[in-house]
């Protein structure tokens, strides 16, 4: 099984981005490429070659689910798994994201001290 190191992260709020970068880079030791919108993520993906997509749901200029759907249409990236982050964790909504291929939905606000280990766990489960 391949260890997780490269994460493509999309979130429109700079303040949340910074907390997440601390959580993922400093605490988790991942290499993270940050994008301000889903649209940016669909562009950045070619150069960055991530192993995992971590997308906020609600963003201007293309939301997370739309960006994920676009990426799934790209032949070279169609198998990259995605995790969504959202404040609205209603079960029907979560199910809709899982149905479209997301491997997990993480509730916001996340805990910066445990976010990385949560993602590692999800990654390991998805690789089995």
């Amino acid at each position: 099984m391949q260890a997780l190191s490269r994460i493509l992260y999309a979130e429109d709020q700079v303040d949340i981005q910074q907390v997440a970068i601390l959580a993922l880079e400093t605490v988790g030791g991942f290499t993270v490429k940050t994008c301000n919108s889903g649209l940016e993520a669909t562009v950045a993906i070619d150069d960055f070659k991530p192993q995992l997509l971590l997308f906020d749901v609600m963003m201007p200029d293309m939301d997370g689910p739309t960006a994920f759907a676009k990426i799934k249409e790209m032949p070279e990236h169609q198998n990259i798994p995605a995790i969504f982050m959202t404040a609205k964790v209603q079960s029907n909504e979560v199910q809709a994201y899982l149905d479209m291929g997301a491997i997990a939905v993480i509730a916001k606000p996340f805990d910066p001290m445990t976010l990385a280990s949560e993602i590692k766990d999800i990654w390991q489960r998805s690789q089995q």
Partner: protein
Amino acid sequence: MTQDKVDVQAALQQLKISFVDKIPAKITEIQQAWLTLKKDPENAEIKQLFHRLTHTLAGTAATFKLDELAECAREIENTIQCFSTNPCEPLTITEISSLLVSLEETASNTNISPVSIDEKTEEDTAESTNKSIATASHDTAKNNLVYLVDDDEDFNHTIKMQIKTFGYQVESFTSLTKFNEALKKQEPAVVIMDVMFGNSKTAGIDYIAQLNQSRTVPLQTIFITGSHDILTRLSAVRANGFAYFTKPAMMTSLVTALDKLSFKVEESPYNILIVDDSVTKSKHAALTLQQAGMNTKEVNDPLLLLNALAEFTPDLILMDIYMPHCTGLELSQVIRQMESYVSTPIVFLSSEDDLGKKLGALSLGGDDFLTKPVKPWHLVSAVSSRALRARLVRRLAETDGLTGLLNHSKSKACLKNELARAKRENTPLSFAMIDLDFFKHVNDHYGHPAGDSVLKSIANLFKQRLRTYDIVGRYGGEEFIIILPNTDLSTAKKIVDVIRTRFSKLVHYCEQEDFRCTFSCGIASYPEFRNEKTISEEADKALYQAKEAGRNKVVCAKSVS
């Protein structure tokens, strides 16, 4: 707790503080969107904007564990979703309007307490960081309890009232026994101790000396006395006395000494500008410096340097040597050719280890050369020692010697910068012009030393009562200015009125006589007035009106529209 964890906590705390600073601007943005939406409820674009703004505020506030604020914003977000389905419902309009009011209130009560709950760090740091961002003074920040011990009851009363006007909490005692009882219950920040009690000429000093023998940390003591012979002074020093004043105590010197002891005048953190084309490297340096308590701004495109310089007014520039478009050496020459930054230190960061090249860099205006990789403590000490010295030098050039406030030209430059910032961030700004009433009379009647002491005491009061980011300058002889960023006209008036009342109660001493002074003030605000010229002219006009109306007043400039 491990060191790494502590570092992450510290970094999180920094992020939180910078978010809290931005809350008022975010709320203004939400309010403006709401005003537009109320006028035009069918406008889908504005509706979406309003929804997104409240959504992101809720999300970010929750991330920083500002739960009340998050909840408030979330409630508005949920209500606006109902509004979307039923746009004409007047009930919803009232509901959102009242929710916005409580959002604003919650925001103004938002405290900066540590982000993450982990072991006992929260308890440890809560006290030092739990500073309300809304209060316009230092009152809540530190232990400000002062014990005043003197057997002269009248003297105690006068001094107590005076010190209180400077924001201290004072308890007075007429006997050493009562003082000792109080000491056992609660430790003060500072003790002001009379030297003579009863027949003993040095009872106060002896008592403190005795107390200190059984203490690991001596009591911070200021002695006051009627005599100033060398032997008494010597014994005061031996009893760890911090300062020694002869009666009638000069209030200004006494308060300056109190401030030093209780750390009430805090140095604002150093502003460090980091110029490096690599985002990762600049962020790393920024985090290291932030953890040492400094403010940082990163510039990753060297061509954007000029804007950053003007907006951020750095104490020091940390510069990478090799960058695209231009080199750090070229950039430092550009900086050195600008008069305002002649003395700003530039420290180069590079993997260069050729001594000749290093010396070349220094001859082009650099101050130091750090070879990458730099150890964090090395970076912090190289930067902070130079920033400190640069700040001292700059302060000499920019401040008024008597009061320590900004001088005329620096005050004007600050107004220009702050106005530009207010426009950019879409926040209000108030500008107050203050003139002492009948000051010529003070100088003529009580003499210039007494006049100087009045000027010093008003300057002290401003420094005490205003927030660290407010700017105070001495504009001319007895004329002062205050710039209050992110403060609207009515709030500014309240703040200055409090200072005006306190100042009018302050008693100034001159030889055998004592007297009081007052000031008049005119305030004008942005966005009512939009440029430096009109804002200062209007404040000046309002000041004139305050004088005409009988002085000791604060008058607000009214906009024409």
